[in-house]
C-alpha cells in the first residue's frame, strides 16, 4: 500500500499524522509562486473576454460542421460587403451549430448578415439567432460584480469576526478567499477559456465555497483552542491538531463537491463545446480545489502566524517553555535515578511505583502523544482469543 494512502488511513483513525503548520513558510512560498504564475498569466496572456464584455454581435447558425464550415461561414459574412468585417470570429458549437461573432452591428446590418447566413445554411432567417451586446454592458457587469464582491467580503468579514469573536480569523479567511480568486482568474488566463458572465458567477460562488471550507476548519480550531490550558499546547499545535482532525472531511468533501463539477466540465468541454456550462465549471473546478487548499494551508497558517504574535500567546509560550524546562529537568533526574547506583527518590516515580504491583516497568509514553490502540481486524482479534 502506498505511503500516502496509509497516512490517510491513519488519519481516518484520528491520528495526528501531518505536521502541516510548522512548514508554514513552505506553503507561503508555494502560494506565492502560484500567485505569481497566475498574475503573469493575467498580465501577459490577458483574459479572453467574451463578447459580453467587449461588445459586439453574435450569430448562431444551425449548420452541420464540416472541415470547411468555419472558412465558409467567414466568407459568407465578409461577402456581405459591410465595412470593418475583417475580424469576424467563427467557431463551432457541438456538431450542428456555427457561431459567428462580429463587431457591433446596426439593425439593418444585422438583418443583412442574418439573411446571408440563413441563405448559406439553407434555413429560414428566424432560425439564425443573434445576440447584440452594447459596449458598456461589460463594464456594467464588471462594476456590479466588483460591488457584489466588496459588499460580500465586508459582510462576511463581519459575520466571521462576530461569530468567532476574533477579527484575525476574518482577515485570514478573506485573504485566503482572495488567493482563490486570483488563482482561478490566473488559470483562466492560461487556459484561454473566454471570460463570460457565467465565469463571473462562478467566481462569486467560489467565495462562498472557499469560505464555507474555511469556516469548518476555523470552527474546529476555535473548539480546540479552548483546551489550550488543559492540553498544554501552543496555538500552533492546537491548530495543527484541528487540521488533522478535519483533513479527512476536507478531502472527502472536496472530492464529493468536485466530482459533479468535473462531470459538468467534461460535459461542457467535450459534449457541448462553447457555452455557459463550460465557463462556469472550469472556474468552479479550479476554485473548489484552490479553496480547499487555501482553507487548510493559507487561512490557518495566516491565523497561526497572527495569533502567535499576540502578547497573550507569547506569554503562554513562555509559560509552556518554563513548564517544559521543569519536565526536562525532572526527566533528567529520573534518568539519573535509573542509571545511578544510588537510588534517587523522585516523587512521581515513588507513588507510581508504589501503586503498581506490576514488577515490569511501564512503557515510556511520549508526552503529548495520544495513545492509540493497535488496530487489528476482526479475524485477528478472534485468533487472539
Amino acid at each position, binding site marked *: 500500500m502506498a505511503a500516502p494512502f496509509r497516512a490517510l488511513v491513519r488519519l481516518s483513525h484520528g491520528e495526528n499524522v501531518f505536521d502541516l503548520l510548522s512548514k508554514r513558510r513552505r506553503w507561503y512560498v508555494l502560494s506565492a509562486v502560484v500567485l505569481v504564475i497566475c498574475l503573469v498569466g493575467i498580465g501577459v496572456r490577458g483574459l479572453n473576454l467574451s463578447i459580453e464584455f467587449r461588445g459586439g454581435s453574435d450569430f448562431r447558425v444551425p449548420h452541420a460542421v464540416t472541415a470547411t464550415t468555419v472558412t465558409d461561414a467567414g466568407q459568407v459574412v465578409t461577402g456581405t460587403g459591410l465595412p470593418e468585417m475583417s475580424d469576424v470570429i467563427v467557431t463551432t*458549437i457541438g456538431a450542428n451549430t456555427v457561431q459567428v461573432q462580429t463587431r457591433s452591428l446596426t439593425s439593418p446590418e444585422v438583418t443583412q448578415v442574418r439573411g446571408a447566413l440563413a441563405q448559406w445554411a439553407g434555413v429560414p432567417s428566424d432560425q439564425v439567432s443573434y445576440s447584440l451586446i452594447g459596449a458598456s454592458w461589460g463594464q456594467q457587469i464588471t462594476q456590479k460584480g466588483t460591488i457584489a464582491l466588496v459588499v460580500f467580503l465586508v459582510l462576511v468579514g463581519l459575520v466571521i469576526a462576530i461569530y468567532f469573536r476574533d477579527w484575525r480569523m476574518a482577515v485570514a479567511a478573506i485573504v485566503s478567499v482572495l488567493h482563490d480568486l486570483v488563482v482561478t482568474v490566473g488559470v483562466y488566463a492560461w487556459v484561454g477559456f473566454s471570460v463570460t*458572465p457565467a465565469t463571473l*458567477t462562478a467566481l462569486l460562488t467560489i467565495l462562498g465555497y472557499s*469560505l464555507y471550507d474555511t469556516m469548518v476548519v476555523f470552527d474546529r480550531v476555535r473548539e480546540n483552542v479552548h483546551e489550550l490550558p488543559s492540553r498544554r499546547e501552543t496555538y500552533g499545535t492546537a491548530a495543527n491538531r484541528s487540521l488533522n482532525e478535519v483533513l479527512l472531511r476536507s478531502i472527502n468533501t472536496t472530492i464529493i463537491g468536485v466530482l459533479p463539477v468535473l*462531470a459538468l466540465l467534461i460535459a461542457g468541454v467535450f459534449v457541448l463545446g462553447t*457555452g455557459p456550462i463550460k465557463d462556469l465549471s472550469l472556474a*468552479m473546478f479550479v476554485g473548489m480545489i484552490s479553496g480547499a487548499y487555501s482553507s487548510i494551508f493559507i487561512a490557518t497558517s495566516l491565523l497561526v502566524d497572527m495569533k502567535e504574535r499576540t502578547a497573550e500567546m507569547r506569554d503562554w509560550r513562555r509559560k509552556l517553555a518554563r513548564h517544559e524546562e521543569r519536565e526536562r529537568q525532572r526527566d533528567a533526574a529520573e534518568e539519573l535515578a535509573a542509571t545511578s547506583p544510588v537510588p534517587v527518590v523522585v516523587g512521581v516515580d515513588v507513588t507510581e511505583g508504589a501503586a503498581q504491583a506490576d514488577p515490569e516497568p511501564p512503557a515510556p509514553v511520549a508526552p503529548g502523544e495520544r495513545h492509540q490502540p493497535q488496530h487489528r*481486524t476482526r479475524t485477528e482479534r478472534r485468533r487472539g482469543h
Partner: protein
Amino acid sequence: MVVVVVLAAVYGTMAGLGGWLPKLGLDLRGGTTITLTAANSTGSGQVDKTSLEQARTIIQQRVDSLGVGESQVTTSGNDQITVSVPNVSQDRLRDMVGQTALLNFRVVYYGQTVAAPSASPSAGSTPQAAGTPEPTPQGNNLPTAPAATTPATPTLSPSPYPSVAGSGTAQDKALGWQPTEQDFANFQAYSCGQPVNDVADQPLMTCDREGTTKYLLGPTVVSGNQVTTASAGIPQNQLQWVVNLEFDSTGAKLFSDATSRLSQGVPSQQFAIVLDGLVVSAPQVNEPIPNGRAQIDGGSSGFTQEAAQNLASVLKYGALPLSLTIDSVDTVSPVLGGEQLRGALIAGALGLVLVAAFAIAVYRSLSWVVTATIVLAMALTYGLMVLLGQGLGVALNLPGVAGAIVGIGVTADSFIIFFERIKDEVRAGRTLRSSVETGWVKARGTVLISDGVQLLSALVLFVLSIGAVRGFAFILGLTTIIDIVITFLFTKPMMTLLMRSRYYGEGRPGSGLEPALIGVDTLPIRRRRTRTVTDTAEEA
C-alpha cells in the same frame, strides 16, 4: 419522517396544480432577452426609481400587447430593465421595446414626399400627412367631417427666414422658429434612413416611419410626457376609428397655443407626433384646441382599428419618462438551450453516480444515507422549483442547473461533517449510539455557520447581481436551506434510528462504522456481552 411529509406535501401540491415541470429560463427553452439601460432624459444625474418603475410598466404593457404569455419585464439595479420573452420574433420584440425614445410634438415646417424605398405605397403614394386625421375639440358635436385633406406639402417656395429664433418663452421660441437657408439646404440633402438626432429644443429633420415623407420640424412644442391618456375607439354615431388624446394642464396650455397658431396655417397646418426620432403621425389642425382634449381621426381614408390602437399606444406609452438604450439582445434558439440543458442534466446524473461510488468506497453501506440525502435534496429542489415557477414565476436557467449540481456537494458535506464527528466521539470512548448524539451537537454548529456563510453569499449575489446570475444565486440559496432542513430532519433522525439497529449500532463489518474504519480496537458497546456470545456462536 418529516422530510418525507414535506416532500409529499410539495409533490402533492404539484399534482394539485397539475404541473410537473419547472418553469424553464429562456436560455433553456429558447427566447429573447433584451437588456435596456435607462438614462435621465436630461442625460445626466441619477435615474429616478419611480420613473424606472413607470418605464418598466410601460414596456410590460407593450410586450403584453404582443400576446405572448410568460413574458417578463423586470428592473434590476438602479437603471436597468430586462425584458424576457419566450419564442417570439426577435425583431418584432426589439422594435416593440425599442420604441423607447421620448415622444414629442413638433410643428411641421415642411413635408415632402420622397420616392418610396419599396413598392406599393398605399393610397397612391399619399404621404401619411395627406391622410391626416383632424383633431377636433372633444365634446364638440360637430361630426368630424372627412374634411379638407389637402396635402400638407406647402406649395409656397421656402423663402429664407431670419435665423433668429423668436423671443420670449421657450414655447414662443419653439413656435416662432424659422429655418435658415442652410437648414433648407440640409433638408434637401437629407434622405430617409440617415440617423437623426432628436434634441428637444432643436429643429429636426426626419421622415415618417415608412420612409415615404420627409419633414422639417421645429423644436418640441409639447413633450409626450404631458400626455395623460390616449385611447382608440369609435365615437357614438360614427363608423370610423379615432384616437382620443388628453394632456395635463401644462400640456393643454402649450397645445392650445400651438394649435391656435397652426389652425391659422402658421407655419403649416400640421403638427408631427415624433417618436424615436421618427414621425409617427402628422395630423392636420383645423381649429385651436383649448382644453387639452384632442381627437385624431383617420382623415378621408380613416384609421383601421390596428392603426388607431397603435397610435393610441404610442401616445400613451411612448411617453417614457426615461430614455432607454438597448444594451444587449440575447436570443437562444430552443435547440441550443435544450442541448445545454440535456448536457447539464447528464452531468448532474453522472455526478450523482460518481458521488455515490465514492461514498460507497468511504462509508460502505452507510453510503446510502449520503446518497439518500442528495436524492432527497434534489427532489425537494426540483419540487420547489416547479412550485415557485408556478407561484412566483421563478424560472430555472442554466446557471441555476449548475447551482443545483454544486448543491450536491453542499448537501453531502453536512453528512461528512457529522460522520467525522461521530468517529471522533467514538475514539473518545463513547458508544456509537451516544456518539451520534454528542457528535450531532458539535456538528450542528459547524453545519449552521458554514451554511450561513453560503446563504449569505447567495443572498449578496442575488441582491447585487444581474440577469442569469440571479437564477444561480437563487438555487444556491435554496439548496443551502434545503440542506439545513434535510440535515436536521432527515440525516440526524435517520442516524439515531440506524444506531438502534444491531447492524449499525454495533458497527458490524460493512456498516461503515466498523472499528477498523474508525480506528479503534473495539467499539465500546453497552451490550458487550451479547456481542461476545454472538461471536462465539459464530466461531463454533
